[in-house]
C-alpha cells in the first residue's frame, strides 16, 4: 500500500522528473513529507511565482517539462502568472497544487481557491483529482498534454486527503490519446504548392519563430534557409535559431526589430512563416502587415492560424516533419534568382544607424558583456527596455541561448528563471539581465541563488524608471511620467550584500570609450568568470530609449529609427 503522495512522486519519476520547484503549505504537506528518498529533488524558492518561473526557465532551456508545486489558496493563485506565461510562450509546464480536503471543497474553507476554475482558460489541460485511483492516469495524461503538439501548461489539483490516502499501486501508466480526424497532419502535398509560390515570387522572405526550437528542428531549418538564401528574420523567441552570421539574416523583426527586417517584411510578396504565431508585437497594424504578400504559415497548432492576419497556405505539423518534406521538394526544382532582392534587403542602405551603439552606452555595455561570454552561455532577459536592447544585441547561434517572457511580458521573470536555467545547466554561464523595476518583483530569489550556491551572473540596467513605460509616456503621452519614477530605488549593491552575494556598480561613463579601457574589460571578465553569484548594477541614463520602435497600432514601415530632437 502506498500513500497518494508517494504515488504522485513515483509517477513524476516515471515521467523523467528529478527536479521540482515549489513552496510548501498546509494542503500540500503530505507531498512534501514524502519527498525524502523519492528521487525527486525539490528546490525551495521564496515565493510561488519564483517557483513557477524557475520551472519555466528549466523547461525553456532543456525542452523538458518543468514542474512547480504549491499549496492551495494563495499558493496556487501565486502560480497563475507563470501559468499564463507558459501558455503564451508554449512552455511545457506541470503545476501540482494541494487542495483542501475533499469534504471541504466548495465550502470556502481556509485557503480554498477553485484553482481548476481560475486557471481553466490559461491551461492546456487540467484536473481536480477526485479519487486516489485517478492519480497515475491524471499525471500521465497531464504530462502528455504539457509536452505534445504546441507545449503548454497543465494544472493538477490534488486534495490533501488524496495525498494521505493509501492504495495498492501497480506502477505508473502510459497515456494514449484518442485519435481524432482533426489531428491529421499535412500530407506532404503542400510542398509543390510552396515551390510554385516561390517561383512566382520576386521578393520572398522567411520569418522564424520559436517553433523550430520547440520541434528540435534547428539543423533542418538552417539547411532550408541556406538553400533558400532569401532575406530571413526572427521573432524574439526565434533568436538563436538562425546563424547570426548568415548573409541573408536581418536580425529581429517587429516592434523593436531592425530596420532591414521590418522593411523587407513590408515589401515582401511571399512570406514563409516558420513556427511563429504572428502576434501583434511582430505584425504591428495587422491590416498593413506584409501588405503585398501571400503568407505560407508552418504551424503545429491550428488554433494559431488566422488570429491576426489570414494566411494563404497553412502547413499544419511539426517543423521536424514539414521542413524536410519541403526541402526534399525544393531540391527537385530551380528557384528564381533572388540575388537582386537579397542585395537590396540586406544591403548597406538598410543597415543599423549605429551598429556599435556608440551613442548609447547601455548598448555598448551589453555588446561588451555579450562578446565576452563563453560559448553556449544562456542569457535570460526580464521585461522592458533592457529586454529589447538585449534581444537586439544578441548574436549567438545557440537556439536556447536567449530566454525571456515574450508573449505575456511578465516583469520579475528573469531572476527565478535564471535559477531554473542554472540548475539545468550547472556548468554553463548563465547571465540574467533585468531592469530595476523587474528585479524588485522577485528580488527575494536572491536567497535561492545564495542557498543553492548558484553562480548566476546578474545584471541590473538601472535607469531609475520603469523604462519602457516611461519611453511610451515620453513619445506618446507628452512626457507625463505618471508613476514610473523609481528614483528612490534601494541600493541594490547593499541588498545583494545582505544576501551574501558579491555586487558592484558600473557607471555609464565606463562605456564612453571605444574600445573600453583595459580596466573596464577586466572588470567584466572577472564578473563573468567568477565561480560565484555576482550582481553588476549598471547605471543607465534615465531617459535612454529603445530604437527602432514601431508605435503601437502603426505599420512596421512606420518605425521610428531614432529620437527626434527636442525643441
Amino acid at each position: 500500500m502506498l500513500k497518494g503522495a508517494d504515488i504522485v512522486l513515483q509517477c513524476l519519476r516515471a515521467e523523467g522528473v528529478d527536479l521540482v520547484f515549489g513552496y510548501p503549505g498546509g494542503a500540500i504537506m503530505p507531498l512534501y513529507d514524502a519527498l525524502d528518498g523519492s528521487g525527486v529533488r525539490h528546490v525551495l524558492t521564496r515565493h510561488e511565482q519564483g517557483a513557477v518561473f524557475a520551472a519555466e526557465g528549466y523547461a525553456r532551456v532543456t525542452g523538458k517539462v518543468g514542474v512547480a508545486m504549491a499549496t492551495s489558496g494563495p499558493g496556487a493563485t501565486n502560480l497563475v502568472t507563470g501559468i499564463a506565461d507558459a501558455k503564451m510562450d508554449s512552455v511545457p509546464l506541470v503545476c501540482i497544487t494541494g487542495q483542501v480536503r475533499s469534504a471541504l471543497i466548495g465550502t470556502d474553507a481556509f485557503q480554498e481557491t477553485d484553482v481548476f476554475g481560475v486557471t481553466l482558460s490559461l491551461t492546456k489541460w487540467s484536473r481536480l483529482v477526485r479519487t486516489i485511483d485517478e492519480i497515475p492516469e491524471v499525471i500521465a495524461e497531464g504530462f502528455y498534454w504539457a509536452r505534445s503538439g504546441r507545449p503548454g501548461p497543465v494544472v493538477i489539483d490534488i486534495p490533501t486527503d488524496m495525498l494521505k490516502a493509501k492504495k495498492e499501486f501497480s506502477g505508473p501508466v502510459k497515456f494514449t490519446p484518442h485519435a481524432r480526424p482533426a489531428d491529421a497532419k499535412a500530407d506532404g502535398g503542400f510542398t509543390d504548392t510552396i515551390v510554385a509560390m516561390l517561383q512566382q515570387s520576386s521578393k520572398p522572405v522567411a520569418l522564424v519563430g520559436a517553433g523550430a526550437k520547440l520541434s528540435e528542428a534547428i539543423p533542418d531549418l538552417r539547411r532550408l534557409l541556406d538553400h533558400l538564401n532569401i532575406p530571413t528574420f526572427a521573432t524574439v523567441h526565434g533568436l538563436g535559431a538562425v546563424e547570426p552570421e548568415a548573409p541573408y539574416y536581418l536580425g529581429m523583426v517587429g516592434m523593436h526589430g531592425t530596420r532591414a527586417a521590418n522593411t523587407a517584411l513590408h515589401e515582401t510578396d511571399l512570406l514563409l512563416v516558420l513556427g511563429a504565431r504572428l502576434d501583434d508585437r511582430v505584425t504591428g497594424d495587422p491590416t498593413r502587415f506584409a501588405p503585398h504578400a501571400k503568407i505560407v504559415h508552418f504551424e503545429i497548432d491550428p488554433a494559431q492560424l488566422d488570429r491576426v492576419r489570414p494566411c494563404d497556405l497553412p502547413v499544419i505539423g511539426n517543423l521536424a516533419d514539414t521542413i524536410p518534406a519541403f526541402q526534399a521538394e525544393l531540391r527537385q526544382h530551380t528557384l528564381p534568382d533572388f540575388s537582386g532582392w537579397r542585395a537590396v534587403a540586406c544591403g548597406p542602405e538598410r543597415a543599423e544607424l549605429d551598429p556599435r551603439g556608440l551613442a548609447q552606452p547601455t548598448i555598448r555595455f551589453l555588446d561588451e558583456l555579450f562578446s565576452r561570454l563563453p560559448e553556449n552561455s544562456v542569457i535570460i532577459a526580464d521585461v522592458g527596455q533592457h529586454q529589447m536592447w538585449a534581444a537586439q544585441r544578441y548574436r549567438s547561434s545557440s537556439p536556447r541561448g536567449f530566454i525571456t517572457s515574450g508573449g505575456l511580458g511578465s516583469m520579475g521573470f528573469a531572476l527565478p528563471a535564471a535559477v531554473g536555467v542554472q540548475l539545468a545547466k550547472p556548468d554553463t554561464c548563465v547571465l540574467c539581465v533585468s531592469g530595476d523595476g523587474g528585479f524588485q518583483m522577485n528580488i527575494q530569489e536572491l536567497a535561492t541563488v545564495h542557498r543553492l550556491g548558484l553562480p548566476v551572473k546578474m545584471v541590473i540596467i538601472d535607469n531609475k524608471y520603469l523604462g519602457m513605460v516611461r519611453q511610451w509616456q515620453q513619445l506618446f503621452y507628452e512626457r507625463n511620467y505618471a508613476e514610473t519614477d523609481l528614483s528612490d530605488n534601494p541600493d541594490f549593491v547593499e541588498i545583494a550584500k545582505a544576501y551574501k552575494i558579491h555586487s558592484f556598480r558600473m557607471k555609464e561613463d565606463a562605456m564612453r570609450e571605444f574600445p573600453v579601457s583595459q580596466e573596464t574589460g577586466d572588470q567584466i571578465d572577472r564578473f563573468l568568470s567568477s565561480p560565484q553569484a555576482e550582481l553588476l548594477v549598471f547605471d543607465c541614463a534615465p531617459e535612454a530609449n529603445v530604437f527602432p520602435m514601431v508605435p503601437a497600432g502603426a505599420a512596421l514601415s512606420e518605425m521610428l529609427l531614432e529620437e527626434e530632437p527636442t525643441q
Partner: protein
Amino acid sequence: MQFHVRYRNTQGTLMRILNAASKRGLDIPAVHAEPAERDHQVTLALDVNQKQVGQLYREWYSIADVIHVGSGAAHTQTWTGHHPPAGVAIEEARSAARA
C-alpha cells in the same frame, strides 16, 4: 449561427468550449448540452463573423477532449474557404493558395 461540438465529458471540457466564445467577448444566447451516444454534444448559438468562425473551429479542436466540430447551414461554405483546420485535404488548401 449554431455550432455543434462533440466532446468527451471530462472535467472542464464544456467550460473550455464555452470559454473559447466568452473570451472573445461573444454573447452566448443559447447553450444546450446533452449526452450523444458514448460522448456528449453541446449546441451553441453565437453571433459571429466569418473570421471568428475559423478561429472558434480551430480553438475548439485544440481542446484535448473535443472530438468533432460542426455547424449549421453556413458551415459548408466556411469550411471550403481557404483557411482550413488541421486535417483538411491538401488539395483544398492548394487550390485556395493558387487562387
